């Protein structure tokens, strides 16, 4: 049975238009033009237990709105959703004890106190027993390597350290479902990788169902087997990341380095579309099914090949392509 089930879910926001200027502001006191924005339009998907699904899309596509509906913060305009058999926006404590939401841009930790105080408070709020608390705490502290920062005021921590503590606060009650909204936003490359590795390990060990949104393609590439792409409130793609690449990126990239003097562009362009060129290293784009043959041809030609590498297209290019196709 699906853990998360979404049927025809829609959300329309109301907002007001205001022309620039003082006069318009005064008019606005009496009459305002009401506008509607359909943030999410009749989306459908379901997620099985233990899946780690990436939720992709440009800013304002409706990712966060969907997560907010699934965690019960927002009430949908129409449609249904069930998470662990509960309707999220009823906000039943029984449901709330089984999931967690981590928002990269909003913290739940008490800013002026050491993170430990927030953990203890969450222990009480989620009614975690002393033994479970100790066990979960030890496990998380070990995995995230944060033993030394537990007693430091949250405001004094770096963004990466704070994010780790946010994750601990969210996971202390062992949620069955975890919503992560941009968990790596603003982090440096090393911190991003740490968080990523942790999410991967945690999902594998605990079979927690995770729905993650991110702007960083690395996150998605590393973590998610399945992706859901949402654009302008509609689902553009739902399926394997690998087949997504196959479908939208029908070519591979050959990175070739040459010895000595190198090569001339004219010698190499007959093999495929040249993307980057210096005499000693080039990047070629070739149709997926021909990649192997082209590589062999280049190796067996009299060009001074030093090394050759066959790679997938960058997934951000793929996603960009999907988004621009939609328009």
């Amino acid at each position, binding site marked *: 049975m699906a853990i998360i089930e979404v049927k025809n879910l829609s959300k329309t*926001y*109301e907002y007001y238009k205001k022309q620039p200027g003082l006069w318009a502001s005064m008019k606005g006191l009496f009459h305002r033009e009401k506008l509607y924005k359909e943030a999410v339009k009749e989306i459908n998907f379901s997620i099985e237990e233990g899946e780690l699904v990436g939720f992709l899309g440009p800013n304002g596509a409706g990712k966060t*709105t969907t997560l*907010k509906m699934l*965690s*019960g*913060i*927002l*009430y949908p305009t129409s449609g249904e959703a069930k998470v662990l058999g509960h309707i999220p*926006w009823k*906000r039943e*404590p029984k449901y*709330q*004890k089984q*999931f*967690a*939401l981590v*928002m990269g841009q*909003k*913290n*739940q930790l*008490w800013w*002026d*106190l050491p993170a430990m*105080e*927030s953990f*203890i*408070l*969450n222990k*009480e*709020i*989620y*009614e975690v027993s002393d033994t479970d608390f100790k066990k979960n705490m030890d496990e998380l502290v070990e995995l995230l390597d944060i033993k030394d920062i537990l007693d430091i*005021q949250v405001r004094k921590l770096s963004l990466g350290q704070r994010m780790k503590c946010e994750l601990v606060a969210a996971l202390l009650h062992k949620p069955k479902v975890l919503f992560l909204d941009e968990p790596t936003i603003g982090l440096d490359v090393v911190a991003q990788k740490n968080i990523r590795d942790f999410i991967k390990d945690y999902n594998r060990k605990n079979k927690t169902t995770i729905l993650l949104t991110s702007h960083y393609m690395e996150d998605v590439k590393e973590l998610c087997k399945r992706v859901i792409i949402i654009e302008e409130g509609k689902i553009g793609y739902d399926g394997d990341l690998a087949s997504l690449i196959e479908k939208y990126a029908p070519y591979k990239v050959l990175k070739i380095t040459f010895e000595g003097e190198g090569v001339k562009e004219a010698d190499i362009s007959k093999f495929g579309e040249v993307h980057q060129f210096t005499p000693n290293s080039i990047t070629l784009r070739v149709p997926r099914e021909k990649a192997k043959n082209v590589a062999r041809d280049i190796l067996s030609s009299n060009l001074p090949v030093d090394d050759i590498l066959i790679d997938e297209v960058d997934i951000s290019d793929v996603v960009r392509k999907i988004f621009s196709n939609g328009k």
Partner: protein
Amino acid sequence: MKKYWHIITNEIQRQFTYRASIAAYAFGNIAELVALTVIWTIVYRNIDVIKGYSAHEMISYVVFAWFFSFLTTTYSFEQNVARDIHLGTLSNLLVKPQSYIRYVMAVATGRITIAFLIVLVQGAIVFSFFRGQLTSLPDFFTILLLLCMLIATYFINLFLSIIIGFIAFWTMEINGTYYSLKVFSKFMSGTFFPISLLPAFFMKASFFLPFVYTIYIPVQLYLGKISFVEGLRGLAIEILWLVVLYVIIKIVWKLGLKKYESVGI
């Protein structure tokens, strides 16, 4: 309700990190009292009795009204509630198995604890400064009644703060409303001077609002100007107001949440 107890202790700890801010409040408290006592001392130079208040009674009134009002203030708690709503912190609180109204009540109570202790110390200093001029302590039962009234006063103030804070569901600015109500309620509660100095019309109107029961009536009880039974009646009306305000909180919360859920803010 262990969780709410932890929220209170967390908030007290948080207050300790802002020691300077607490001291700043304490300074403001005293400044207000100094201003009031100076005015009345000058006024009474040439007059013996004003509307039934002798100079000593008036100083006693002002000192105790000051003391009671700072013991029961919420120190602009409406700002905290508004901030939760505007910054979206409310979202983080809503997804947890807890009641937001109980959560804010716990935060508010933890938040005032240290300031409360400071006011007690300040009170002791002020009382010893004015000793000889102040009305002496009433009997034990009156003190007990007074304590109950002041607890009710604190919660009336807190409930009002929460309601005003909830205005943030609809507007980005609550400062105007907050400021107006603050001045109005201080005036109508008799914190600056006995309400009986006002024209009869104001006096009558004030009894239809909760404010007069929060400071004026308790001080009257302390000064022995009203009987114990009248004091009990005052407490009963305070409790009635608490019930009314709580119902208003619940209604405004429901409406506000509906808006929050639909807009996301």
